[in-house]
């Protein structure tokens, strides 16, 4: 209740800020700035209080609030409980609004001394205002009786919440969304710069103060995307870090546009060209962020996306659509009106100039973005054209983006060697020579190791080229002026990333394997043995697999469980991380297999009395009624473990075959020794309540081979089906990301220094 009121107060603050900022630049009157800032700060403080309230409600389990009930529960650990703040639509928008608001505080002080505050913050306030409007409509502070009127009595407090979607229950959920939303907020700032430039009729100087913000947007959104990729790889078991899923694609598109703009802005600073291009790209950044949100949150992709995390809502659909039209229309109309008065500087038509290379590189990035957005929107496009929803295959993305990826990689090296305006062909060739030679040699080696298609060979060569060239340049610049090294370092990261993409895409090997319990299977250089499952807490099950390679044994425990939340089987992979590769084990399912021709002998074991069986000595120690022995998914069954001590060659080990009583029906689960030589099937149990020492069991003992059978009518063995894969040099992807981020940080520092007013000509 109080939360909703605070959201409305914050919205009023933004309205004040909007009006006052408008008046400040309309009337050239500084006086209005005081009101505008007060209004903006009111909104930010309001968002902070509202967020604190929601966090408090979640942490104290106030389930009478629909949002708290929908996305959290008493069983969540604290970190995930806090993260349920942004597990649903309303909370996500609150987080986005909060982070956008806070980023705006920095933007305000940044723009003040650059004479930009009025126009810039006017536009930026619209963005924060629209997010607040969304929160008024999709109120995170609804009570359950308001959400379900007539069905739930007023004052009713549900005893527990529904909990979090199990796909989200991971520590990446704690950090990935906030970083992504900082990226979204930064893309709001880049939009604000472009539109403010149009309002101010300053089409040339704006790129200077805007550059660090574009770099910041590329950095934060890029980091958010990569963290999402790592999450998918490490937890969701998609088998890779990139699956061209709509959720991933839709944030990739604004990132590519921001990246293209960052490069054409550099060209504009030098040559004055790309005036309109930069304004359009600046406007598109935020419009595409909105479109991304629209695709993933409105349910418009429907059945074609398996991974839409948030339930659709018509209100969100219409609101987001109108936001896209509003921000896109406002920016582009303004651009159209101002078009005639813009200076027209032609693109430098010297083909071997840095400007031209930057232009081609940016154009390639834009093409990648275009094809990605077309592919991602294919359900909408096919629905409009044919009235039938269908999606493109992943091959579409690979086919269309690879040629442009090659161009991007090659140009990211080539442009670095070129001088502005023009370069001498001889000098260029001389500078390129080491990269060309090393690149060709390395590509030759990779061809020898099985690289085949022309496209991949070209991409590999381009990737080595960009890497070597930029190492050269970074070394050269780094010795002179280290603060200018950002671009070269970022492009070293790009080279590493491309190499990682190639090794993981072209050299990965995968195999679907059936692991019969206790029977080792050779696969991908590992000897894999499934040893059985153990409880992993919260009704989850870890499937233990030992992987042996070069005499070293590692235990892997991928997790699989049936989730009540969305009625689906959740599968988490397990990974062995090595310097040059990852060994990736994703569980697919547990099956049973009938076995024939195994016979054993049945023996009666009295408690505490050792029985000799060939070279073994077997003692029945007692029953184990531990509740942990409950089987997957079912609670109305009782499991009794029969504890046997097996001594062989002076060593004693404990084996516990089980009896399952499922509503009167008995089922038996065998146990076996660690070397799988001896197997025990319980046939019947005779517990003695009065004198436990006189209990006895009847056990079938099977020797030889590694067969595992269960007694009773059908003899079956558990078969764990896994997909094992080798991801070679996947560490290059993570390393490339880190290096690129370091490069971007150096760039941001340099470009914000350059944007200081004292360093430059009049701002107007």
């Amino acid at each position, binding site marked *: 209740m109080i939360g909703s009121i605070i959201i409305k107060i914050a919205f009023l603050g933004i309205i004040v800020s909007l009006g006052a900022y408008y008046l400040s630049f309309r009337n050239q009157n500084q006086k209005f700035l005081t009101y505008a800032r007060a209004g903006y700060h009111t909104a930010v403080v309001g968002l902070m209080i509202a967020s604190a309230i929601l966090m408090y409600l979640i942490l104290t389990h106030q389930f009478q609030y*629909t949002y708290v*009930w*929908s996305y959290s529960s008493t069983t969540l650990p604290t970190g995930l409980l806090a993260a349920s703040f942004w597990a649903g639509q309303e909370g996500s928008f609150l987080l986005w609004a909060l982070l956008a608001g806070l980023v705006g505080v920095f933007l305000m002080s940044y723009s003040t001394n650059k004479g930009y505050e009025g126009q810039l913050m006017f536009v930026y306030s619209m963005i924060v205002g629209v997010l607040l409007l969304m929160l008024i409509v999709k109120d995170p502070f609804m009570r*359950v009786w308001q959400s*379900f009127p007539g*069905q*739930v009595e007023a004052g*009713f407090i*549900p*005893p*527990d919440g*529904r909990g979090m979607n199990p796909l989200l229950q991971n520590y990446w959920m704690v950090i990935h969304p906030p970083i992504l939303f900082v990226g979204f907020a930064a893309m709001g700032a880049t939009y604000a710069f472009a539109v403010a430039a149009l309002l101010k009729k300053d089409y040339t100087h704006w790129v200077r103060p805007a550059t660090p913000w574009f770099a910041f947007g590329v950095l934060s959104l890029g980091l958010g995307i990569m963290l999402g990729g790592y999450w998918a790889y490490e937890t969701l078991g998609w088998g890779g870090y990139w699956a061209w899923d709509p959720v991933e694609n839709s944030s990739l598109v604004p990132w590519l546009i921001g990246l293209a703009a960052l490069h054409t802005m550099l060209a504009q600073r030098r040559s004055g060209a790309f005036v309109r291009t930069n304004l359009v790209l600046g406007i598109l950044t935020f419009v595409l962020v909105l479109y991304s949100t629209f695709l993933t949150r409105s349910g418009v992709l429907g*059945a074609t996306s*398996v991974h839409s995390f948030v*339930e659709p809502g018509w209100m969100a659909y219409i609101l987001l659509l109108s936001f896209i039209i509003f921000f896109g229309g406002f920016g582009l109309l303004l651009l159209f009106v101002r078009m005639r008065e813009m200076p027209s500087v032609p693109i430098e*038509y010297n083909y071997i100039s840095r400007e031209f290379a930057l232009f081609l590189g940016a154009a390639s990035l834009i*093409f990648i973005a*275009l*094809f990605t957005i*077309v*592919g991602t929107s*294919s359900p909408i496009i*096919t629905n409009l054209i044919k009235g*039938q*929803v*269908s*999606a*493109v*295959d992943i*091959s*579409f993305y690979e*086919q*269309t983006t690879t040629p442009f990826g090659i161009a991007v990689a090659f140009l990211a090296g080539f442009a670095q060697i070129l001088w502005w305006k023009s370069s001498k062909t001889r000098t260029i060739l001389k500078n390129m020579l080491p990269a060309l030679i090393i690149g060709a040699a390395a590509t030759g080696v990779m061809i020898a190791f099985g690289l085949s298609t022309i496209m991949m060979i070209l991409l590999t060569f381009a990737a080595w080229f960009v890497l070597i060239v930029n190492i050269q340049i970074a070394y050269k610049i780094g010795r002179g002026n280290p603060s200018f090294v950002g671009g070269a370092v970022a492009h070293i990261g790009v080279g590493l990333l491309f190499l990682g993409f190639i090794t993981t895409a072209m050299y990965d090997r995968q195999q*679907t394997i*059936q692991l019969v319990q206790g029977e080792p299977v050779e696969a991908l250089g590992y000897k894999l043995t499934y040893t059985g499952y153990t409880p992993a807490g919260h009704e989850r099950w870890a499937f233990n697999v030992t992987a042996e390679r070069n005499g070293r044994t590692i235990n892997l425990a991928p997790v699989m469980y049936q989730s*009540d*939340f*969305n*009625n*689906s*089987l959740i599968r988490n992979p397990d990974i062995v991380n090595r310097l040059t590769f990852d060994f990736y084990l994703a569980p*697919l*399912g547990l*099956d049973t*297999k009938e076995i024939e021709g195994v016979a054993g002998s049945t023996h009666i074991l009295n408690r505490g009395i050792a029985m000799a069986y060939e070279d073994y000595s077997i003692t029945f120690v007692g029953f184990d009624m531990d509740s942990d022995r409950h089987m997957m998914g079912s609670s109305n069954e009782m499991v009794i473990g029969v504890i046997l001590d097996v001594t062989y060659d002076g060593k004693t080990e404990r084996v516990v075959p089980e009896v399952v009583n499922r509503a009167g029906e008995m089922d038996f689960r065998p146990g076996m020794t660690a070397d799988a030589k001896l197997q025990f099937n319980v046939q019947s149990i005779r517990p003695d309540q009065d004198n436990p020492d006189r209990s006895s069991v009847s056990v079938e003992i099977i020797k030889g081979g590694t067969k595992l059978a269960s007694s009773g009518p059908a003899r079956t063995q558990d*078969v764990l*089906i896994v997909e094992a894969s080798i991801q070679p040099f996947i560490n290059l992807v993570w390393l490339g990301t880190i290096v690129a981020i370091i490069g971007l940080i150096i760039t941001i520092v340099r470009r914000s220094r350059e944007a200081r007013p004292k360093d430059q000509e009049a701002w107007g």
Partner: protein
Amino acid sequence: MNTKTIVAGVIIVIFLIFGAWSFLESNVEYTDFQSAYETGRTVQVEGTWVEEKGERYNADLNEFTFYMADKNGQVVRVVLEGPRPNNFEIATSVVARGRFAAEDEFRSTNVLTKCPSKYEGSAEEMMGASDKQYYE
């Protein structure tokens, strides 16, 4: 118009045609068995599992075989290259992606199952939770 503009224009048009061609080529349509058989293309067919005809997982080939009826009621044997899909038994409908390998065999690379979902919270669920609490 100068030559450069024309060359640039032609290059862009070529890229766009290439994109459009790829789009049509890789577009996986939702359709029924009849047209999937006629076109021979990779498609997605939505339908239901014919339970009476059973299902079988061949662990050695890693193939899961079942019979599926599409919306026209045409029943076709579907061979999925992989293990039994999640929640196969309780699914209200299944979507098989693949193509006809023979007249009587639809070879599928991926089968999605659609289940009665509890994804969205309902008032009954909330009350249900309270009932449980009450009885415990």
